[in-house]
């Protein structure tokens, strides 16, 4: 049997490939990026012609994957948790249309917000859309989850959500591979109206989805990923979801003395849970993320059973789990030998030396110097670091594209000048429609597109904006004399400041494109060129 050392992200990718994947659709986002990158790199995927180009955003990715499923092939769409907010329209309605070819929606959550704006738990989305979910506990299960999800998806004609979290996505372990399965042939849906969500059809589809819920729960009761492991000491029972199971077993390397329900497939299998509640005096629930299972078991009145978890403070309400938190919740706190050092200082990530955003912010700050601060709306990307010392240049970072629309709203309120700073890839992800709003009302905003010609923060993936920004802005209706392209370099500082000032005081939409390649991708390109030469 073939064995590989794989990140959780790579395990789902390899699992999907071996289960007959025909296409992956995604927009980069930590901690999900490496899934698509892996498929792009694998020779076999290229030879098979598995689709793996980046999408403009998670919504377009979700819909393209649904289209591939419509055509009968197995498709996967990958995103980080907040990406599912962007894809939610397509995702929830895909629950109603159902799938044809297997449709796997992979969401990588980021509890503790290592590189995110929030720590929302995607399992709520799965329940909201009424679709089955798998939450693997380790790399091997992640690999197997892909084939299992595709089979489940095709058996019930439903999308299946697979949820992983940062620690699994970015941790490597040995994985044993199964024999690969061939891709599906092109096969259109038998019912040519399955995907037409006119109200009359949607109502019918929705009834059918509701009707499947019992079967989905039965699948979870009998899932190979869920296990009821009985044990003698029933003073406590433990429901361990996803990687919570690993942290539990870390504390009991010789085996857990209490009954354990290892839970990795949803909807919550009620029979297993009921058995534990009936047989154990107290039940501790370990979840990586929100108290999703805990809330369902407690219900609103929370009276019948003795339940411990995030809601009563046994486990902290926010943040990811780790072995120490779990140990403490079990009353087995691990003693520490050394104290925390008092002299260690935080070392936040920074803009790389030579980064074009440094010059863009220096110019913008100077252009705004005589004005009261607090008028720069920004977005998600490397340039968000402009909020920190020494720049203190931006005043918002909310969601992909919000810089332009928030600047517009503030301008509507009377703020002038109002500025938006957005990256090239973020602009094509979700900035273009907001710019259209501003153009239609001729809102007095200045949009600075910091164009480093790549999706920088996630490691330099191809940006959908590359070579298209001027044409997009023109096409949306920005007047040509207010589309300004500059090169953010120290030697052009004074003229760039003067130009920004001109546009700041223009009483309409201006777009300033600050174009200079990301120094990281430039470095890699130089290295590659050198290797080709030698």
């Amino acid at each position, binding site marked *: 049997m073939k064995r590989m050392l794989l990140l959780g992200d790579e395990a789902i990718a390899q699992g999907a490939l071996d289960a007959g994947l025909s296409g992956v659709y995604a927009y980069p986002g*930590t901690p999900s990026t490496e899934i698509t990158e892996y498929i792009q790199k694998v020779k076999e995927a290229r030879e098979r012609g598995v689709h793996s180009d980046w999408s403009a955003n998670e919504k377009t990715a979700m819909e393209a994957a649904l289209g591939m499923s419509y055509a009968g092939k197995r498709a996967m769409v990958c995103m980080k948790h907040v990406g599912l907010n962007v894809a939610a329209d397509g995702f929830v309605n895909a629950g109603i249309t159902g799938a044809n070819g297997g449709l796997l929606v992979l969401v990588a959550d980021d509890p503790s917000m290592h590189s995110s704006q929030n720590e929302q738990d995607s399992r709520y989305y799965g329940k909201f859309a009424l679709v089955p979910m798998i939450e693997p506990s380790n790399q091997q299960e992640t690999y197997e989850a892909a084939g299992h999800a595709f089979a489940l998806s095709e058996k019930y004609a439903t999308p299946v959500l697979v949820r992983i979290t940062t620690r699994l996505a970015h941790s*490597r372990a040995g994985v044993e591979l199964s024999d690969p399965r061939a891709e599906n042939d092109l096969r259109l849906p038998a019912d040519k109206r399955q995907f037409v969500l006119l109200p009359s059809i949607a109502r019918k589809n929705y009834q059918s989805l509701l009707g499947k819920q019992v079967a989905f729960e039965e699948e979870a009761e009998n899932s190979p990923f869920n296990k009821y492991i009985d044990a003698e000491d029933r003073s406590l029972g433990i429901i361990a979801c996803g990687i919570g199971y690993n942290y539990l077993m870390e504390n009991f390397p010789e085996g857990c003395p209490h009954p354990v329900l290892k839970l990795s497939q949803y909807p919550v299998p009620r029979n297993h849970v009921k058995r534990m509640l009936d047989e154990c005096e107290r039940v501790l629930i370990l979840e990586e993320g929100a108290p999703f299972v805990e809330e369902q078991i407690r219900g609103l009145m929370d009276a019948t059973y003795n339940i411990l978890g995030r809601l009563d403070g046994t486990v902290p309400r926010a943040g990811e789990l780790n072995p120490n938190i779990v140990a403490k919740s079990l009353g087995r706190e691990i003693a520490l030998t050394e104290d*925390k050092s008092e002299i260690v200082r*935080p070392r936040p*990530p920074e803009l790389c030396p030579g980064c074009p955003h440094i010059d863009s912010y220096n110019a913008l700050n100077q252009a705004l110097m005589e004005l009261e601060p607090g008028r720069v709306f920004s977005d998600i990307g490397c340039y968000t670091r402009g909020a920190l010392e020494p720049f203190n240049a931006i005043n918002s970072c909310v969601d992909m594209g919000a810089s332009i629309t928030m600047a517009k709203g503030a301008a509507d309120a009377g703020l002038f000048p109002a500025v938006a700073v957005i990256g090239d890839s973020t602009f094509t992800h979700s900035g273009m429609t907001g710019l259209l709003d501003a153009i239609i009302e001729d809102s007095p905003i200045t949009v600075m597109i910091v164009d480093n010609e790549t999706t920088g923060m996630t490691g330099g993936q191809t940006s959908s904006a590359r070579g298209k920004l001027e044409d997009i802005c023109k096409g949306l209706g920005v007047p040509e004399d207010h589309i300004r392209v500059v090169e953010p370099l120290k030697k052009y500082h004074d003229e760039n400041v003067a130009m920004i000032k001109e546009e700041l005081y223009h009483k309409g939409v201006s777009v300033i494109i600050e174009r200079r390649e990301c120094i990281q991708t430039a470095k890699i390109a130089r290295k590659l060129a050198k290797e080709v030469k030698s």
Partner: protein
Amino acid sequence: MKRDIILAGVGGQGILTIATIIGYAAVERGLSLKQAEVHGMSQRGGDVQSHLRISDAPIYSDLIPEGRADLILGIEPMETLRYTTYLAPDGWLITNRKPFVNITDYPDYETVWKEIEDLPRSILVDGEKLAREVATARSMNMVILGAGSPFLDIPAEDLEGAITAIFSRKGDAVVEQNIAAFRSGRAFAEESNLATE
């Protein structure tokens, strides 16, 4: 056997190369391995760490529990101090001596070194100097790996085999330099260890 190792440094210093080499040697020996890495926003100039776990028994958690690390191996001294609470009662802290200063409030160097030297089991290595003596400053992370190697319970020849496998694409000269750097770090740690025992 079981070894839980925290690798610490600053984004770009090459801790993942160290992790890859130890991981390669461990897998070749048929050991189980888990290696949690930091990707994404934390990479550039920020603090980075990797939890590397090797064992001949199954490994559950991807994260090492605080209080249970056998070794903290660092390329930057203050960064190793960030993880002292992870040290097991008999755990070692081994780090490069030279600070990497990209923050304005970096603590006084002497204080950092003293805090490390005051730990019951620690070794400070002048990785850059040792690397320059046998190779170039770029092989500094191999000196650090060498200095940590006596504490890994993996034979040195296995680790050298892993270095050879991983650097072979870059040519024999690079392999030899990295192995020389590794040996120099290992010799230094063995001498210091004898001196403290």
